[in-house]
């Protein structure tokens, strides 16, 4: 561990409280001791606090920080980062606003990692890990990554765009010490699976390999050899092109796997192959996570049963299972902590969850047919209530449904008062309680009153300002709030801005909040990471006023083609020490 090259004068004589030299630092520790102590600090929040104590501590902290976390890539610049932190080996960078996942942010908006990588290549030659979320990454950037950092080990790309399988070829070819290649939710130019064959024949260091979101077929022989060589492989998530008998062969090579993402289950197996697959699964004694399972049908589910007992995370979001077959499967998973399913399992399936998974902490129910305007199948409030009854440890829920009642939500939070993440999406915008026809205000009122640890909340349904009054009054630990098609007036947004002391991210769309609401948060926005407001009632003039009065905020506006000149259709406000973006495309107006 390298210490500060400019040690302070009192290095060998720790000053005591009687010291009259007020110009000298007050730290009682020699530098290397302080540095050693601080090197144990991992949490960014702790390190931030430490750096504010005094100049010495600030310096000691910056010399000992190795992991960099930047939640908004535009809040700081590569130059500032490089100057402050000399010894970084691991970087996490997040780019676009979350609503870009739902096509609300145009292409070429920004968040390009390129200039970051150029700076890192100069200043952090010992960079080992890079984790990117919602960033644009070009093949050229991947080439730099692959060649500029000889010790590079872990690459994780979540919801990124801009690269192709050619970029992956560079990584596979050049990163001799790669332990992790994790590509998730990524829509890229998938030319062919040849990238996988670029791992050298003597390369065997992979611990994590996830290419589930790529479509094209890889060379199976190359994959099988790679898996055999990587003795420490613990996470393997293959793509749909891998068939069942190929999967069986991979499992034989890697029975030590802890996380498995299967390929497609569509193959028609002969009876002998069925038995082979079943025993391959039961041979994987360390399996904790299972995902993939494309096109799985009830006939093939039993091969998984043996592996299910030790599972803690089951991700069925690509498997359209019905309630009966799902119920049969879930009965084998008593140790489940996290479950992601499609709503094809219906309420009956969720009842089975309630009775089979007493340790469940997280549930996500995704809509199989989110645009089904007609039949509104899927799950209802009954399924949610059933889970809450059986799973008292539940604290994270993401639930898509077509109908909900205030009473049901009240019951749910009574059963599970420890929610930290409550994300309810009633899929028809502005839908009231379907039994009483009243707004869903009382539902979310119950959530914030009962769940004092609530950190993240997504609201939906017909909501008046009352919901936001409740949130402002009770949600004292709330950090992230997502609002759509809700509220009656500016008062709603004002309540939240005035009331939630820990609010960091606020994203709003299609709500009747206007300029008064926007401007009521003047002081607040500097304490937050960002604010997103789209299709509300905010004008450009108000945004300009905000920008004028708060110079340390970046206020960016994007306009829709059809709207009139004064409307600020999409507003993105975030604090930054780097000043306005230098790479903003023409459709992003920086005020």
């Amino acid at each position: 561990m390298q210490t500060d090259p400019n040690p302070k004068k009192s290095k060998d004589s720790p000053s005591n409280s009687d010291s009259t030299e007020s110009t000298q630092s007050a730290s009682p520790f020699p530098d290397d001791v302080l540095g050693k102590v601080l090197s144990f600090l991992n949490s960014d929040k702790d390190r931030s606090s430490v750096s504010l104590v005094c100049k010495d501590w600030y310096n000691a902290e910056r010399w000992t920080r190795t992991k960099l976390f930047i939640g908004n890539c535009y809040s700081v610049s590569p130059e500032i980062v490089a100057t402050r932190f000399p010894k970084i080996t691991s970087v996490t960078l997040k780019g676009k606003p979350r609503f870009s996942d739902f096509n609300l942010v145009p292409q070429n908006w920004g968040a390009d990692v390129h200039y970051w990588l150029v700076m890192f290549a100069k200043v952090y030659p010992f960079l080992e890990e890079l984790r990117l979320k919602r960033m644009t990454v070009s093949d050229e950037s991947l080439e730099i990554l692959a060649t500029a950092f000889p010790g590079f080990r872990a690459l994780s790309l979540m919801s990124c765009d801009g690269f192709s399988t050619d970029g992956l070829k560079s990584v596979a070819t050049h990163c001799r010490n790669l332990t992790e290649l994790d590509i998730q939710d990524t829509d890229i130019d998938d030319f062919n699976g040849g990238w996988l064959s670029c791992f050298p024949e003597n390369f065997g260091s992979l611990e994590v390999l996830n290419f589930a979101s790529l479509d094209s077929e890889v060379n199976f022989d190359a994959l099988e050899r790679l898996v055999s060589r990587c003795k420490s492989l613990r996470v393997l998530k293959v793509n749909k092109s891998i068939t069942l008998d190929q999967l069986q062969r991979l499992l034989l090579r890697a029975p030590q796997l802890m996380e498995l993402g299967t390929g497609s289950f569509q193959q028609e197996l002969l009876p002998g192959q069925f038995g082979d697959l079943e025993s391959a699964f039961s041979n994987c004694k360390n399996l904790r996570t299972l995902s993939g399972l494309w096109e799985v049908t009830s006939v093939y589910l039993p091969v998984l049963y043996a592996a299910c007992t030790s599972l803690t995370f089951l991700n069925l979001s690509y498997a359209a299972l019905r309630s009966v077959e799902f119920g049969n499967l879930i009965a084998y998973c008593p140790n489940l902590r996290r479950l992601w399913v499609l709503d094809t399992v219906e309420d009956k399936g969720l009842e089975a969850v309630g009775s089979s998974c007493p340790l469940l902490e997280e549930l996500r129910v995704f809509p199989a047919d989110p645009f089904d305007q007609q039949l509104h199948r899927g799950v209802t409030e009954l399924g949610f209530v059933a889970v809450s009854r059986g799973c008292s440890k539940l604290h994270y829920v993401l639930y898509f449904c077509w109908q909900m009642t205030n009473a049901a939500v009240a019951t749910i939070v009574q059963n599970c008062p420890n929610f930290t993440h409550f994300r309810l999406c009633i899929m028809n915008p502005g839908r009231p309680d379907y039994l009483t026809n009243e707004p869903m205000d009382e539902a979310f009122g119950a959530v914030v009153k009962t769940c004092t640890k609530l950190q993240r909340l997504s609201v939906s349904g017909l909501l008046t300002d009352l919901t936001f009054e409740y949130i402002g009054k009770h949600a004292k630990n709330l950090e992230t709030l997502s609002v759509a098609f809700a509220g009656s007036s500016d008062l709603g947004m004002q309540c939240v801005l005035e009331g939630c002391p820990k609010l960091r991210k606020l994203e709003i769309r299609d709500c009747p909040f206007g300029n008064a609401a926007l401007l009521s948060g003047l002081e607040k926005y500097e304490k937050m990471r960002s604010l997103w407001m789209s299709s509300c009632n905010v004008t450009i003039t108000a945004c300009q006023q905000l920008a004028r009065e708060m110079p340390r905020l970046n206020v960016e506006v994007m306009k829709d083609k059809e709207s009139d000149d004064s409307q600020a259709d999409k507003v993105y406000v975030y604090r930054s020490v780097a000043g306005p973006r230098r790479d903003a495309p023409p459709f992003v107006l920086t005020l």
Partner: protein
Amino acid sequence: MERASAAYENDLNLKATELRLGLPGTDESSEKQSSRNYKRSSPEMDNSCQKDEQKCVPASKAQVVGWPPVRSYLKNVLHQKNDSDLSGMFVKVSMDGAPYLRKIDIKVYKNYPDLLKALENMFKCSIGVYSEREGCNGSDFSPTYEDKDGDWMLVGDVPWDMFITSCKRLRIMKGSEAKGLGCL
């Protein structure tokens, strides 16, 4: 099907032939609880006219960009469902006097009353299941179906499970036409 076409020719249901926007069964006066204007539509979503009875927005609204908030990545994967998989059995439903046919997934319903209720909602009429005691329950329409052999049968005779595997299409006949099938 001669019988069906005869029904159409003899019928002077003027409302059905009236020119208007909207699918059969929709009411002009759909409830509007919210006056929000969902003017934006996404080019990548299906913009076909959607019937809506339960929501409080105009029936002809186009889908909203980025709603529901499901990632496009997940969306694309989910829509690659097989036609032959077990997750739906869509049959055509025709109603005497209506110019358009509808399609429903009969696997969604648990029993006959469920199915009939849905059909009544869809076509805004009262449909009765035939029973030996009550006839067609005094209603104007009776439901019939074409089975695997191509025969037209009265809905309600066979157990529900047998019905859903043998039903190929449904036809809601006017009471007077269904006389031959047992209604009076």
